[in-house]
Every structure is written in structure tokens, then in C-alpha cells.
């Protein structure tokens, strides 16, 4: 009997190690350990064994059962592992094939730049307002200290709709409007983005329609130094921490003093390159202290109240930022262009 058990063990162990699938192992289990399995068959012959040997045989049989079960379990795991392995091997992908395309639309580069500009000023506590694109001559010129036949009107040939109504040539009329609305309350800290129009034939640097963003602060004790700081913060947010600015005296009828603002060229770090035409500086905006006449027209006392204004061209800023050399690309809307943003 002992011999039979030993031979069963070796046969079963071989069967286990020969099995390569879960099914074969299940069969092995039924064949040897099942209710009618070979081990049970052998143990049925226990009555033929001398009683004093029975406990030894019994123990042996238990050990064999235990051994086989352990073997089976570990072998099943092994087989599963191999099967999974084969499956994984089979399922190898070519990860160099392109991913499935998610078609997201593209924002227009001008919108991107406008949003950037507006967000910077929002974070500095400026409110955003919009002025009308079709505007009265009064707000576009007169209220900004540009009377009829003022030589400054040369600077901006306008699209008139009637004698008194025109497409605004800048976002500055908004200055007059907001001051008129708010005066004598203080402070004013606003930004006004929007479309403007000038009678320029379209070429690489001109467009009859373009964007502008107006910045206006009116309060007690607002100084040119404050203007400089505000612009410096803006320029560094927009063009990078390393940028410096240069203010040059200039002329706008609605600011005094007035200045043009250059930023140090980001392409050459001010060394001089083709982008900055060798000067190391890029002109990005115009600004100044609100002209006392403009304050007066709006209802503020210029001897007590002061303010600053700045106007910048998102088109120009986008051209600089993205290295675009032709303003017409913005309004032509070639998808091959738009898809780059």
C-alpha cells in the first residue's frame, strides 16, 4: 500500500508538471484527488492494512494529498502566469503609430494676446470695459483735446459714417466716456480693449481694422513714476522678467507729458538684431499723463486730480510675440496660420 501511494505520488507529480493549461491541471486534480480519484481508490483498501500500520498509512496519504494540492496550486499560478505572459506578448502595440486625434479648435492669436493683456491688468485690479466701435466725433477727437482741424488729426485718417459719427480711430474715446460717467468719483482704474479703424490700405504693417487696448488711471497723486511702474509690471508679465523699458518723449493731444514706450528686444537681449532693426529696442505702446484739458472736460479739477493713460496695439504685440511679419495674416484667416496657435 505504501508503495502504491508512493507510485501515485510520483505519477501525479509528473502529470502536474506535464500539464500546460488550467484545464489539464483540473483533470489532474480530479484524477488523483477527486472524490472518485485514485488516492481515494487506494485508501478504500485501508481495511486490508494491519491496524497498527493504519495511522502511518493515513498520515502518508494526508501528506501526499497535501503535497499534491500545494503542487497543483503553485502550478496553476505558474500556468496562469504563462498564459498572461503569452497574451501580453501577443498584444504588443506599435507605439510609434500616431495617437487618435482629438480635434480641439484654435483660438485666434489676437484673442490670445488680448486675453493675456486683459488678464495682467485684471490682476492689478483694473476693471475691463468696452466702448462703442462706432463713435461720435466728439468723443473720438474733441473730448480728447483734438479740435477740428487740429494737426494731430493728420496722424489718423478716419472712416467717417456721417459728419459727426465715425469708426473710432483708437480706444481713447473710452477715456472721455468713462471719466464723464464716473467723475467726480475716484479712483478710476480701467482697461478697454477693442477694434479700431483707420483709413490705411492694408500692407504688411497696416490694416484698416486693428485692435487697441486703452489703460486709464485717475486718482489723487497719480504720477508719471506710477505710470512707469505699471508699464514695467505689464511688460515683464507679457514679455518676460528680464525686459526693461525705455520711455521717450512724444506727443499725443490728450496726454501731457507723453511718451512712447520701447521694450528691450527679447530676440537679441538688446544687442541689436533684425527684429529691432539694430536698435536693441522695440516700440510697443504710447502713454502719458492725462492732459489737464481732458480731465477738465470730463469734470475733474486738474490741479488736484491726475491720471495716466496708455494705449497699446495687440496686433503689434502679437506680431512681436509670435514673430509674425505681416499683419494681414490676422484677418486673412488661413487655417494653416490659425492652426499654429
Amino acid at each position, binding site marked *: 500500500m505504501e508503495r502504491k501511494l508512493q507510485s501515485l505520488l510520483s505519477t501525479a507529480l509528473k502529470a502536474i508538471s506535464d500539464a500546460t493549461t488550467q484545464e489539464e491541471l483540473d483533470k489532474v486534480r480530479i484524477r488523483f484527488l477527486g472524490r472518485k480519484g485514485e488516492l481515494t481508490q487506494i485508501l478504500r483498501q485501508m481495511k486490508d492494512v494491519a491496524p497498527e500500520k493504519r495511522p502511518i498509512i493515513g498520515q502518508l496519504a494526508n501528506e501526499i494529498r497535501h503535497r499534491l494540492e500545494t503542487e497543483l496550486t503553485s502550478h496553476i499560478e505558474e500556468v496562469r502566469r504563462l498564459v498572461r505572459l503569452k497574451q501580453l506578448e501577443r498584444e504588443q502595440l506599435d507605439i510609434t503609430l500616431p495617437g487618435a486625434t482629438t480635434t480641439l479648435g484654435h483660438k485666434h492669436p489676437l484673442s490670445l494676446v488680448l486675453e493675456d493683456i486683459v488678464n495682467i491688468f485684471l490682476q492689478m485690479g483694473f476693471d475691463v470695459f468696452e466702448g462703442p*466701435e462706432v463713435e461720435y466725433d466728439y468723443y473720438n477727437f474733441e473730448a480728447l483735446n483734438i479740435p477740428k482741424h487740429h494737426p494731430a488729426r493728420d496722424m489718423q485718417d478716419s472712416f467717417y459714417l*456721417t459728419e459727426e459719427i465715425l469708426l473710432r480711430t483708437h480706444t481713447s474715446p473710452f477715456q472721455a466716456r468713462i471719466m464723464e460717467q464716473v467723475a467726480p468719483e475716484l479712483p478710476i482704474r480701467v482697461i478697454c480693449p477693442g477694434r479700431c479703424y483707420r483709413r490705411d490700405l492694408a500692407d504688411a504693417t497696416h490694416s484698416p481694422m486693428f485692435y487697441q487696448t486703452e489703460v486709464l488711471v485717475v486718482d489723487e497723486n497719480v504720477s508719471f513714476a506710477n505710470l*512707469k511702474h505699471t508699464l514695467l509690471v505689464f511688460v515683464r508679465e507679457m514679455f518676460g522678467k528680464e525686459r526693461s523699458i525705455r520711455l521717450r518723449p512724444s506727443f499725443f493731444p490728450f496726454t501731457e*507729458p507723453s511718451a512712447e514706450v520701447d521694450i528691450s528686444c527679447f530676440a537679441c537681449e538688446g544687442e541689436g538684431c533684425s527684429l529691432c532693426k539694430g536698435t536693441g529696442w522695440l516700440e510697443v505702446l504710447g502713454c502719458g499723463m492725462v492732459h489737464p484739458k481732458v480731465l477738465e472736460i470730463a469734470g475733474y479739477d486738474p490741479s488736484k486730480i491726475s491720471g495716466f493713460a496708455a494705449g497699446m496695439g495687440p496686433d503689434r504685440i502679437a506680431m512681436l510675440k509670435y514673430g509674425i511679419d505681416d499683419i494681414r495674416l490676422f484677418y486673412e484667416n488661413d487655417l494653416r496660420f490659425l*492652426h499654429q496657435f
Partner: protein
Amino acid sequence: MRVPYSWLQDYVSEKLPSPTQLADILTLAGLEVDSIERANQLDWVIVAQVVEIKLHPETEHLFVVQVNAGSFGVKQLVTGAQNLKPGLKVPLALPGASLPNGQTIEASRFKGLLSEGMLCSSQELSWEEPEGKETTGILILPRTANPGDSVAQVLQLGDIVLDIEVTPNRSDCLSMIGVAREVATATGAKLVLPQTMVPVPKSNEDEGSLFDITVAAPDLCHRYAGALISNVSLGSSPAWLKQRLMAAGMRPVNNIVDITNYVMLETGQPLHAFDYSKLAQKQIVVRHARPDEVLITLDGTEQKLTEDMLVIADGEKPQALAGIMGGLNSEITTNTDTVLLESASFANINIRRTARSLGMRTEASLRFERGVDPNGVLFALHRTSMLLKELEAGELGSILDVYPEPVTPHVITANPDRMRRLIGASIEDVFIKKALERLQLQVVQESRDTLQVRIPTFRQDLKQEADLVEEVARLYGFDRIPALPLEGKLKIGRRPLELSIELQIKDILRGCGLDEVQTYSFINPKSMAKLKLSPNDNQENLIPLMFPLSEEQSVLRTTLLPSLLEVAAFNLRHKAKAINIFEISRVYLPERMPLTELPSMPRHLAIVLAGTKGEDSWQSKSQENDFYRLKGILETLIHKLGVSGKFVPSALNCYHPGRQATFKMNENEQLASLGELHPDVAESFDLATRVYALELDLSALFMQMELTRKYQPLPRYPSVERDLALTVPQDIEAIVAEEVIREAAGPYLAQLKLFDVYLGEPIPIGYKSLAYSLLFRAPDHTLTEEDINPHIETILQHAAEKLGAFVRH
């Protein structure tokens, strides 16, 4: 304003900084230097003396010339020129020279013989020879020129020119002296005024009787001074003068005209020379033009004058358009022996208006428009007098000066404390006073906290304290002013709701795969006609521009569609396969025409789809755009913005009659129209494909938005799902079938979703199959079959009765 470097030097006591440094100084002083050019530099063009001339052995059309080129040695040239003689000095362009006409010189062989460069004509050097003395062939240089010297130097070419953009306020800087004053102020040098000569009457003879000046329009002419130039010896100006005029951008004419132009460029005071013999009754009358008067100006144009224009007339008729251009009749000619010279000051607005209405722009009008200092009138005449003498061109007689109301310097009261506060820098009083003095602004009185500053009349732009603030600040240096943060109460920056929503909408649409475009607000009225819009959106609503640049940009748009369709056509022409674009912009709707008040300018959104939704990939071909994609985008948008409403059929001419809809909101207010573009309309826009378009009034949307969200508890009991396919007559609208199902579905229906529409075998002809998935759920218990089945029965029954449906097996 073109300022030749060497010319400017004449008026500055110290040697000028280098041209680039000078450009920086001027730019930072507010005179922006646009460019630094060299006028006609002629590198590698040198003086050569002809030594020997021989005929070319191979041809009789060419000569072989040996020249002495000084330190460059002896050179051999082959030339066809006939005017050479041994001993003459001529310009030689050496290999490497680049001529003003763009030609680059190389050594080359002519019929076997080497030519080491090229002998040049005056034309090739862009050098204008004195009138009547033009040489044919090679330019002959003065005998005094030394072989090997630069020709540019000999001809006084090649000056460096600063091109300065003078802002409209600085009329004083439209002159060499004005710019020099800025240079002197900025560098600490002194301004050196040119030599003048006050004409002295030749005899006691009453020169005043030789001509008479009447200013009949004193409001438009503040001062008029005239003097006669006698003993005129008309001829060409010396080279130095011509070179300076050319470098400054003016063409030399003759010595008299050149001198007047030179003085204008120098002093900023325009002058005009009349042929005295042509002036009827020897009178100058400054008056308004009479109705129907005409004047042929120097450019040969016949100008029709109107009464608001100011003319300089003689006893009979206009002889000049005041401050703009002289008349052809009294032009200086070779027969002129006496000239009447005008130096005057005219009202800027009138000159500007006249110049504009006649479309004329001259150096004189530019200066008068910006404002000429009446107190500079005599200085210009005295300077002219000096130059006439120096050039032996004539003799200026005594001056008749009509100046009824002399302009005197005004005084500005300035408060240094307030100036400092406005600048934001602690600039000392001493600096402020010094700065003003350097600008020739005189502090005439000083009290505890104010300065009385006298403003010379050439600085017409300085009117109030703020103007002085700029002067002090720029002399202090904008770069030295500190950058100080704004002070005040903290506050949040806000964006108006409309703009925030616009951003949100753009994000949603971008998520839907649409590209944003930006198009011009003005369009071609013809493209409106192409849209075949209904009469209530017709062309009478289009606001026209008074002076459009072209018909394409001549009216303000009332709809965004034409622009977007043009963008679509443009991209299709460029082989784009997927057009999925949108724009959010304003449209312009007048209350009434012609316009008396601002139009309403609501924001619109327009979407145009054509071709495919995206790019094909290796996994799948991209879906073709269709009506339902467009509708889906709108549904996504309004769902996100919490707007509800319904789609109803519409009948717009621009859309396919069977493929269009209007979306109406709760209040029955129309929000959007959408559809497949009518094939005729598509064709008229050069769109050879199906196009889907939508336009939406965002201002209407803003009124109906519901952006607040409230949490709904998640269901606690499981749901039961049933699929149902109804075969219904083909003309039954989906929404009708859905309503019938909803009505019959009982209280447990939580969701109803159409998942298939099918026509064809085995569905009978005239029918379609609509397959729905129904989700049932109860809030308080788990549903059983028994809960659901009766409702399914009701649905089938109602569908059969109301829709004529039967269930597909």
C-alpha cells in the same frame, strides 16, 4: 524732416556727437530718429586724371584710356566715351564700387582688353550738373580735384542724413535751427545762429512806392512782410547749396528759389518769390478768393478756388495760394530781373483746410499748418539778404512789414511742487529753473511756490504747466524718473459679464473643434445680395462708409455670415479639407438711416462648417460635417449656458428649404438661425461643397442665461433599461414621437434617448424605424418588471394609435 549731419553742425557750437549718438540723444529728447542714411556716398569712386587715349585695336567704337588714379596707381579703362582728353579729371568707379543706380562695378574685358573699372557720367553718379552746363559723356571734375580723392568729397556728396519724425506739436523743429536748439539743449552746447544782414535802403528814394501790401484778411494772415530783390542774376546755385537741398529732400531749381528753400529749411519760415514784373499795379493783396476765381499753381494744375481760401493777389487776380504754392504766372524765369520776396505768417487752420480740400501738401503748407512763429518773419528775410549777397544772386531792398497785432511771449504760472508730484521724482528747484533756461524759457518772476515762465513765441506748443512738466521731465531724463507702484485701496479687477461669457463660449466652441477667425467689420454690399436675405434684413440697413478704401470694404455688416463664407472659400481654394470656423464680433444695426445716432452694436456668433469635422486618421476617416453636427454644437452651447428652447422650421432664402431651422427660447424669442446653405448661395460664394452655417445673437442669449447650478442627489435605487424600436410613417417628426412616448411612459421614466434611425429593408417603404432606449427609475424602491411592463404596453398602444406605429420584431 531730413536733417543733414554736416548742415546741423553749422548751428551748434561744439562738435556734434557721432551720428548714432546724436540719433539717440534726439530720440530721447522726443525727436524720434527714424533712420540714419547716407546721401549718395559713392564708395570706391575716385578722381582719375586722363593720361593717354588710344583707339581699341579691335573696334573703332571703343577707346583704351590710361589714367592716373593717385595712390591707386595707373589704371587702364576701356570706354566708348567721346569727350575725353588727356589732362581732364574724371570720376573712376573701381571694382567693388556700387553706384546709386544699383550697378556694381567689376573689372572686365572688352574685346580682349582689360578695363579696371568704369569712368562715370553724371547720370551714373546721380549728380545733377548746373542747368545749361550738362556734359555729354563722362563727367568732367573741377581741375582742382586731386587724383585718388573721393569723388563724393569733391562733389560734396555723401552727407549723413538723420530722418527725424517731428511730432505735430513741435512746429519749431521743422527747421535746422529748431533741431539744433534741441541738440544744444541736450548736450549743453550753444546754439549758433547764421549770419544775417538787415537790408539798408539804397537811397532816399521811396522804395515803399515800388509796391504796396494790403492785408484784407487779417484774421488769416497775422503778418506779411515783403521786399524786392533787385539786380537779380539768375543762375544755378553753388554745389554746396544744391547738395544740402538734395540731402534734405528738395530739388535744386535756380539760385533765387534755392535760397528761399534753403532759408525755409534753415529757419522754418517758408518764403515765396514772385516775379515782380508780373504783379499788376505792383500790389500785394492778401484776401479771400472770389467766387469762381482760378489759379494755375506752379505744378501746372488749375485750382478752382472757393471763398474760404486765402490767396495772395496782385491788383487784379490771385498770384499764389497763400502758404501752399505759388502761381505759374509769377514764377521766376530767366527773364526775371526783379523779385518780390514774401515772408509771412498765416493762420494754420485755414491753410490746413485749403491744402486738404485741394489735395496739396507742400513743404510750405506743412509748416504753416503746424504753425509758423510770426516773430521769425524778419529773421528769414535778413538771412535771405545775407545769402543773396554771398551768392551774388541779387540785392534785397528795404522791407515792408504789415504786422497789425504783434504776438508777444506769454507767461505760464508753474508750481514746482505740483510738477514734482506729477512727475513722481524729487527734482530740485534749481534743476527746474536751469532746465527752463536751457530751453530759452525765462523765469521772469519767482514767489514762494510759483514760477512765472515767459515762453518765446517759437514754442507755440507750450501753453500750460503740464507742458512745462514734460519739458522738465525730458530734460531730467525719463529714464531717471523712478518706477513707483500705484497706491490706493485694494480692489478686484472685474470683467463685464458679457466678456466673461464670450470667453466661456469661445472655450466651448474650441472644445467642439471650431477655429476662431477674425474678419473685417466692413464688407462688400454685393455679398449681402448674394445671401438673398429676406426684406427685413435688406441692404438699406447697411451703414455706408463715407470714403471707403474699396467696394469690398464699403459698408458695415449686419451679419457675420458673408465674411465667414469668404474665409471658407479662401481656405477651400487652399485645399483645406476641414472647415470648422466661428467668429464672435459685433454687427451694426442702425435705428434709422441716414444715421443720426450711434447704431446698436450687438455681439453675434457665427459658425460655418464645410468638408469634414477633422482630419482623417489611420484608424478612421473623419466624419463629414452635416446639419446635425451644427445643431449639436448649438445644443452643447445652450445646454452649457443653461438656455432652453426649441428648434422650429424656418424659411430663410439663404438656406436649403428643407434643411434649416430657427432656435427659439422660452419667451418665443428667436436666438439663432441655422441650416445648410442654399446651393445657389454657396455657388455665389465660390463654395463648391455643402456648407452649414449658423448665426446667433449673443445679446439675446445673455438675457436668458442661467449659470447657477444646483446639485441633484444621486439615485439610491437601481434603474431598469428597456430598448424600444417603433416603426412609424416616414413623415412623423422625431419630436412628435418623443412626446407621445414621454406622455405614455408613466412616472418612472428618467431618461429617453433616440439611438437609431433606420430606413430600408426590412422596414416597409414609407416607414422608418426609430429606436429608443428608455431608462426607468423610482426614487423610493427598486423597480420590478411588473412596475414597468404596463407602461411599455401603454407606450406601444399610444404609438400605434397616435403615430400609426408598429413594433419592429
